[in-house]
């Protein structure tokens, strides 16, 4: 069971709602993924197009818990204003806090992130920060009141998978009691499974499903991968070793002669 800010979830896959070929495709992909949490954003609403009004109807139909983001915010101030608008709009204290440092990597600005996380936590928000694998930033975020951390695997939309595995292992080991969600950079189901095998609590992704040739099938593939990875973690993985170790019993091998063993 995944527990985020006191709420339990069966699924360990969180899905973004952007970039799908159609609203119906989004709906089917969310269903196939089994996700119970979907991320959303807020954007300027045109009086003519009223795009957001229709989208809200679709989100309500999904019946998922909504996790609004502050995507595109460059400063703590922008993120705080956006978080407040999101709280009113979506009726949730949850916020996927993003403060972005630059356009090429969409790397979190850890300084602005910690600043915004502290202020928002003090205002009653339940902050799910999009961060890096940096340990000191993670410590500051926890001290700021975050009880969930969401480190990236790789830059958003890059599909490169876990590019800094050693640091992610350290982060996992360092915060045994904090739910850790891998957020961004996942390209394949095997990336997601690998994160889960390492003991990460959940995976949040969007592009890998939305931009797949068949998003619905890919959503199902990710659901299986996340479940398989989690089961493997719970089962306890064996340690890799340098040399072979026969799996078939050696005792009683036919034609065995002692000099074979030397």
């Amino acid at each position, binding site marked *: 069971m995944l527990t985020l800010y006191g709420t339990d979830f069966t699924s360990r896959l969180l899905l*973004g*709602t*952007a*970039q*799908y070929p159609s609203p119906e495709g*989004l709906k089917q992909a969310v269903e196939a993924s089994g996700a119970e949490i979907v*991320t*959303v*954003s*807020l*954007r*300027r*609403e*045109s*009086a003519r197009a*009223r*795009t*957001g*009004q229709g*989208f*809200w109807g679709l*989100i309500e139909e999904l019946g998922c818990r909504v996790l*609004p*983001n502050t*995507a595109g915010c460059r400063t703590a*101030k*922008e993120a*705080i*204003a956006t978080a*407040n*608008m*999101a709280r*009113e*709009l*979506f009726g949730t204290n949850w916020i996927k806090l993003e403060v972005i440092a630059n356009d090429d990597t969409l790397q979190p600005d850890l300084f602005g992130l910690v600043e915004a996380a502290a202020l928002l936590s003090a205002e009653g928000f339940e902050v799910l920060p999009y961060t890096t694998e940096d340990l000191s930033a993670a410590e500051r975020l926890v001290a700021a009141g975050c009880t969930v951390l969401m480190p990236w695997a790789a830059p*958003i*939309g890059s599909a490169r998978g876990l590019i800094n595995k050693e640091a992610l292992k350290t982060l996992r080991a360092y915060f045994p009691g904090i739910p850790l969600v891998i957020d*961004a950079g996942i390209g394949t189901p095997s990336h997601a499974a690998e994160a889960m095998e390492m003991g990460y609590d959940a995976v949040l992704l*969007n*592009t890998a499903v939305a931009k797949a040739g068949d998003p619905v099938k890919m959503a199902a593939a990710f659901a299986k991968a996340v479940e398989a990875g989690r089961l493997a973690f719970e089962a306890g993985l064996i340690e890799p070793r340098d040399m072979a170790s026969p799996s078939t019993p050696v005792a009683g091998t036919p034609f065995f002669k002692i000099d074979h063993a030397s």
Partner: protein
Amino acid sequence: MKILLNGEAFATDAKTLDELCARLGFAEAKIATAVNGNFVAAFQRSTTELARADEIEIVAPRQGG
């Protein structure tokens, strides 16, 4: 009076944020607002007076990752 509405120049004689939202057809819409970078809650819109060159943001739910 000229203001900046969602990043674009906009002329209005609305006195309050609430009035502006209503004139844009957002009276019953699912929107949230900010003025000059600060969040303005729905209940504060009717008492939020608009001034020349105010930067108004009106946002709504959208797809996100």
